[in-house]
C-alpha cells in the first residue's frame, strides 16, 4: 500500500449522480491501495478546492476555467478523460418549435418566442457551456426577463425538475437527463451538434504550490482513468441501465479532436 493512502478527489455532482464513480473508485482502490475520498460539489467549488490545495485531484468539465487554473500554475497535469454531450430538452409540445434545429438556431427561436427557459445559473460546467452558446448566438441572457429566463442556482437534477414543472426548455447533459428521465415529461429536442460536447478532464493539483497534497496518489488516479482498461469500462457504463453508454472514452484523443 502507498505511504499516504488518503486521496481527495473533488468532482462535480453530475459525475457522482451518474453513478460512474461508484464503479471506478472501488476498482482504483483495489488496484492501488489508495483510499479515495470523493467530494461531489459544484464545478466552481471543485476548482476552488484545487486552487487552495484542499483536494489532490479534480475531475471536472469546464474547459475554459480549467485552462485558467492551469495557467495560474495550480494544476500540474491535465488529461482528457471522456466526454458525453449536452442536449436541449423541453416539453413535447415544443412551443418554440425547435425540434431538430441546430443549437444556435434553437436558442434564437426560444428567445424569439419568449418561451420559458431554465438555466442552472450556478457557474457549473454545464452553465458555462450554456452561456458560451448564448454568446455564440449573439444573445445576452442578462437582459432577458426573469419570468422567461429562470435561474435556479441548483444542480442539474433539481433544475430538470423545475423545467419539467414549468414546462420550460433546458440545456442539460445527457447523462443526468437519462438518469432522471422517469421523473420527467421533457423530451430531447436538440442533440448531436458538434458544439454540444461535454468534456471531462482530470487535473492533478500542483505540489509545488501546495506541498501537503498527495501528488503520488493524484497522478496514480489520473493514470488509472486514462488507462485503456478503465477507458473500456467507461465506454460500457450505462449500457445495462439505459441501453446506451453515458460517456465516450477520450484518453487517446486531444482537445483539438473535440473542437476545444
Amino acid at each position, binding site marked *: 500500500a502507498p505511504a499516504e493512502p488518503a486521496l481527495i478527489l473533488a468532482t462535480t455532482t453530475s459525475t457522482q449522480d451518474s453513478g460512474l464513480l461508484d464503479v471506478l473508485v472501488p476498482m482504483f482502490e483495489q488496484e492501488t491501495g489508495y483510499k479515495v475520498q470523493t467530494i461531489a460539489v459544484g464545478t466552481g467549488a471543485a*476548482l*476552488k478546492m484545487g486552487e487552495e490545495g484542499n483536494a489532490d485531484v479534480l475531475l471536472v468539465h469546464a474547459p475554459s476555467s480549467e485552462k485558467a487554473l492551469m495557467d495560474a500554475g495550480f494544476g500540474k497535469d491535465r488529461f482528457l478523460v471522456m466526454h458525453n454531450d449536452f442536449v436541449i430538452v423541453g416539453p413535447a409540445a415544443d412551443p418554440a418549435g425547435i425540434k431538430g434545429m441546430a443549437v444556435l438556431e434553437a436558442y434564437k427561436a426560444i428567445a424569439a418566442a419568449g418561451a420559458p427557459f431554465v438555466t442552472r445559473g450556478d457557474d457549473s460546467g454545464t452553465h458555462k457551456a450554456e452561456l458560451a452558446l448564448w454568446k455564440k448566438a449573439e444573445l445576452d441572457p442578462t437582459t432577458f426577463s426573469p419570468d422567461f429566463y429562470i435561474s435556479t*442556482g*441548483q444542480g442539474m437534477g433539481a433544475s430538470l425538475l423545475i423545467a419539467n414543472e414549468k414546462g420550460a426548455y433546458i440545456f442539460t447533459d445527457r447523462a443526468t437527463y437519462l438518469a432522471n428521465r422517469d421523473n420527467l415529461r421533457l423530451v430531447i429536442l436538440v442533440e448531436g451538434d458538434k458544439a454540444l460536447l461535454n468534456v471531462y478532464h482530470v487535473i492533478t493539483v500542483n505540489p509545488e504550490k501546495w506541498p501537503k497534497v498527495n501528488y503520488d496518489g493524484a497522478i496514480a488516479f489520473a493514470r488509472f482513468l486514462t488507462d485503456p482498461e478503465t477507458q473500456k469500462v467507461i465506454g460500457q457504463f450505462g449500457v445495462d441501465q439505459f441501453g446506451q453508454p453515458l460517456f465516450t472514452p477520450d484518453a487517446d484523443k486531444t482537445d483539438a479532436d473535440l473542437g476545444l
Partner: protein
Amino acid sequence: MTFDRELLQITLLSLQISGLATGISLLIGMPLGTLLALGKFPGRSILLSLVNTGMGLPPVVVGLFVAMMLWRSGPLGGLNLIYTPAAIVIAQVVIALPVVTGLTAAALQSLNPRLRLQLLGLGASQFQVVLALWREARLPLLAALMAGFGSVISEVGASMMVGGNIRYQTRVLTTAIVLETGKGNFDLAIGLGLLLLTITFLVNWALTWIQQRGARR
C-alpha cells in the same frame, strides 16, 4: 437589479417567508401543544412522541415530501404552488410546527398544575385559562418561538426543494449561500451567512430582551 438591491430583495423575502412560517406554526402549534400538555385523552403520549420526533424532521425529507405533493403530478398539483414562496412557507410550517408544539407542551407541563385549578376557580373559561397559562409560561414560550424561527430561517433543504431557489422569486438567504458555496465563492457565502446571523441575532435580541424583562430573578 443591482447586486445590493438583489441582496435586499433576498433578505426581505427570507424574513417574510420565515416570519410567516413561524407565525403560522405558532398559531397552530401553541394550541396543539397546550392540548397535549393539559388534555387527557388516549394516545396523548404517542402523540407527544410523534411531535418530538417531528423536531427531528430532516428538511430534505420534508422538502421532498411537500414537493411530491405539490408537483403537477402530485395530488395538490392543481394549486400551482410549487416553486412559489407559498410552497416554502408550507414546508417550513411542517418543520417548525413540531418544534413549537413540543416546546409549548414542555413549557406548560412545567407550570404548577394547581394554578390551572385556581384560575378556573376564579371563573376563567377554558380559553381564558389557556391565555393566562401562556402568559405565565411566557419565558419558555419565547424560547419555543426562537427555536421555531431559528429552525426555519436557517433551513435550506426544503426551501431548495420546493422553492427551487429561483432568482428573484424564491431565492432566500440560505439557498443563496448554498449557491455561492457551490460556485466556490466561499467568502461571499460566509458573508451571506453572517448577514443571516445578524438578522437572526437582531430578532432574537429583541425577543430575549422581552424574555429577560420577564425573567424571575
